[in-house]
């Protein structure tokens, strides 16, 4: 059972010496309770408290890293069933599956060139293809090794979807320093793959006919020296997938069996859109997908971004000027902060007005309008500086900027800071009144 701050405080020396960096022992105890600091920082902590606190801190799900270098991906380390209880920490890795039995090497190289460079920016995150799951080509060990190397060369993590131990061994030998993930075909004898993973200290996917089988195999693999594993539960349809993912996560968190404390691997065939959605929302750590194009990837990435956002640290929007509709140089220019919920509400309402406009989202450290104003992050000067930096002032001829009604108090200061004939118009307090504001204020003003 986790201890409260006050319970921990009573175990601490109570010197308020501040050597830990906190002003009081109580403040330090509360950080300990929240898991945000280590007990090592306390110079006088007793052995007793070290033992008491240590027991509760081992992670229930192991972290496993696949790949090397900048694009290496770590999965697992989750601690909760519901994201609101804390946060989900390691976003689902989305891997593209390649079947070399249907493609020439030239075609594969071309795809790899393409996928390695995909990088779509959205709300502060770079969407990429996280890795490549290479199916073992029939009949050529050499080709498997060559293709695996072709992926590694581009810096991308590799999952080796192996059907034979000889095939995967040749690929592993070629890229063993790149920490590939070994994925045996479901149903094959896993023991040689276990031995291979143990030999090269590589991560391995464990499969089984049911969860009992998966858990038992994982324990067995651990006995044989495999430390990094992902579990692949049976998933004949969406319902079975959901059931097994849910049970695996809960079993791991409740620590009911040592074979469950690992991240989860999932493979999906082309067109199984729903399975990927379930995987992302419900605890899959790594998904290898057959043929899926941008129209599927974009929602996957976005869903993952939503689900893995820390609920206690809401998303910040990148400061920039967003176009609503197709605004021309006479379209209204509005300004708001980069707190994501503020942005979503304002942009949604703006869109609803049908009036093309520009929304300048300025950096206010992710705070809402009034909070940012209170903290001095949305002062006239700061806003003016941001508007200039973002080039918002260059888009419009009317030299008028509309500010949120709650901060009408900054209008004079903003006008001064912008200078150059700029004028500030105080908008409504609530975004839902933008429609009326455009109709009753903006349009009459622009039409004289």
């Amino acid at each position: 059972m986790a201890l409260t701050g006050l319970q921990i405080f009573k175990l601490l020396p109570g010197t308020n010496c501040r050597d830990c960096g906190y002003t009081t022992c109580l403040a330090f105890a509360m950080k300990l309770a929240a898991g945000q600091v280590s007990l090592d920082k306390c110079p006088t902590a007793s052995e007793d408290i070290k033992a008491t606190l240590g027991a509760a801190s081992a992670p229930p799900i192991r972290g496993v890293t696949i790949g090397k270098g900048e694009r290496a991906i770590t999965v697992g380390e989750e601690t909760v069933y519901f994201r609101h209880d804390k946060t989900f920490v390691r976003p689902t890795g989305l891997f593209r599956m390649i079947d070399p039995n249907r493609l020439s090497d030239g075609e594969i190289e071309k795809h790899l060139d393409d996928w390695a460079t995909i990088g779509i920016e959205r709300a502060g995150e770079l969407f990429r293809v996280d890795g490549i799951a290479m199916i073992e080509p029939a009949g050529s060990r050499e080709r498997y090794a060559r293709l695996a190397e072709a992926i590694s060369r581009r810096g991308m993590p590799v999952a080796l979807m192996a059907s034979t131990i000889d095939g995967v061994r040749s690929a592993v030998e070629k890229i063993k320093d790149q920490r590939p993930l070994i994925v045996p075909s479901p149903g094959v004898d896993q023991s040689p793959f276990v031995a291979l993973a143990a030999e090269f200290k590589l991560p391995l996917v464990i499969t089984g006919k049911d969860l009992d089988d998966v858990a038992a195999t994982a324990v067995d693999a651990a006995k044989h020296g495999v430390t990094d594993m992902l579990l692949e539960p049976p998933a004949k349809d969406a319902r079975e997938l959901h059931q097994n993912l849910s049970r695996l996560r809960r079993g791991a968190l409740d620590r009911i069996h040592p074979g469950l404390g690992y991240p989860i691997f999932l493979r999906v065939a082309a067109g199984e859109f729903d399975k990927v959605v379930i995987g992302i929302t419900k605890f899959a750590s790594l998904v290898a997908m057959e043929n899926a194009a941008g129209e599927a990837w974009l929602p996957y990435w976005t869903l993952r971004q939503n689900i893995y956002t820390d609920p206690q640290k809401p998303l910040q929007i990148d400061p920039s000027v967003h176009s609503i509709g197709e605004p021309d140089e006479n379209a209204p220019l509005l300004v708001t902060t980069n707190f994501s919920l503020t942005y979503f509400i304002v942009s949604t309402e703006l869109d609803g007005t049908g009036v093309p406009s520009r929304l300048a989202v300025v950096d206010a450290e992710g705070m809402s309008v009034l909070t940012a104003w209170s903290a001095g992050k949305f002062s006239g000067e700061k806003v003016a500086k941001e508007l200039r930096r973002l080039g918002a002032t260059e888009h419009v001829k009317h030299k008028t900027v509309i500010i949120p009604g709650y901060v009408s108090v900054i209008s004079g200061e903003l006008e001064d800071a912008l200078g150059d004939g700029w004028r500030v118009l105080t908008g409504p307090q609530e975004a839902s009144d933008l429609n009326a504001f455009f109709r009753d204020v903006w349009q009459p003003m622009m039409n004289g």
Partner: protein
Amino acid sequence: MISKHTVLTAQKHRIIFSPSGRSIVVTEGTSILEAARLASEPLPAECGGRGACGKCLALVLEGDVPEYRVIHRKEGLSEILACQTTVRGPLTVHALVESELPKLISCDQSIGMAPLEAWAPWPLKLDPPAHINSSEDLGVAVDIGTTTVRLLLIRLVDGVIVGEASAYNPQISWGADVISRIIAAEKGRLDDLAELIRRAISAMILETTTQATDDADLIRAYVVAGNLTMIHLLLGIDPSGIRRVPSEPAALAFEPVDASSLGWPGRGGVMVHTIPAIGGWVGGDIVSGILRIGLPRQSDGISLYVDLGTNGEIAVGGADFAMACACSAGPAFEGSGIRCGMRADQGAIDGAVIDMEKGTLELSIISGGAARGICGSGLISLADALFRAGWIDRIGHFTDKLPDPYRLDDKHGRALRLSQKKKIALWERDLAGLIRAKAAIFSGIRTLLDSLGIGAGDISRLVVSGNFGRFLNLPAAAGIGLLPDLPPEKYVYVDNGSLEGAALALLSKDFMLELESYLRKITYMNLSEVPSYMDEFVSASFLPHTYPEKLKG
């Protein structure tokens, strides 16, 4: 696009204020409130000009204002909020809300009392921080609140209170909350703000010394408690660091300053001491208060201390530790920020009972007579009575059960009529302000307790302080969910913990020393960094609470 020219040209226009006749020429686009400030026209703006308080409501007698800013029309004239309305042509405007200029209120609640006997949490001997020359020598203890300033004049030779005064903080014209004051200071008004509070306190000293003795020069020492912003502003120190994230105040504790440098009476070397703070948002006022209730010497159990001011302050702890936070409650508890609000003074409604069978409302009024307004304790009592009777719903909206004779509908919305002759009433938006204030306090309490992993039932003593005069209806406070619902014997009411602590510090050097050593044990919690605080706040914004079980021990 045809008239773009008129949009862009910065023309100048004359604004005339009625009935004072003050006028000023301002650039087009300036707000009417700004024009009023430039013209020294006292137009109140407790929210600092955010369109939130409604106190700068004005009638446009001549000239044109933007149509979308017109709130209401009266006999063909437009009513506008001066802070929200920009100048687009020559205007004549007339302020509608009676300007609440700081007024001096004398009271004699404490005169004749000896703080060391009445308030000392443990035995303290008389030992003021100044040399006593004569039996007539005096000391001054001051509490500078964001809304209210209170002062005690104490005879040092025997520690008896000989004078008392209280007044609104005149800085209120720069905004009712500390943020607005800090912003005003940042905009070059620091000296003005310092001057305002120093002069107000001078006036209070003169008033009280006249009551007590004619010679203000007998004053030998001052002790001032207040939140850190108030102390910065008093000393004329830039407060802008306080509102940074994280808060970086210029200092938490200040060396004593010579009274003459503040323009206060005292012959040669009379020093003004200030009570040190813990953090930018937990100032000397709460430190003073928790010392006053004796936290450092509390051997067992946990005390909860709640100071119900504009800046609500909460502390929980005992001899080994204390944790403190501050929350912005708004000025409702001090009888400000509500339309018919007033201080707990003669004529203030301070209690209410509804007879459910007869459907009648009975009011209690300080010193009897006709009601002049509603003070903080009256507001709490009214809300509780209305809620119990079903006259308001859980979000403070009047229901169909409100009897017709009490129903009032006007441009400010629906209200409870409290006086037939004078227009004293309680509007829905006043109740909304109270609900916000009580939610800020209660969610602060919950967040502190939750962070320590304790429940309301673990509290052995709940000390409430605030400017409620002699009276706070504790059952009503618990009834609306302002305070936890604990057995009555656990409640203690302290009139003004901050002021009383300052008085003790004025009379006992030991008290001040113990205060300084206890500071190290106090942990400051910044509520805005606690993710669950907003949730707690919203769930407390309901009568009595979205989860009534959270009120119980």
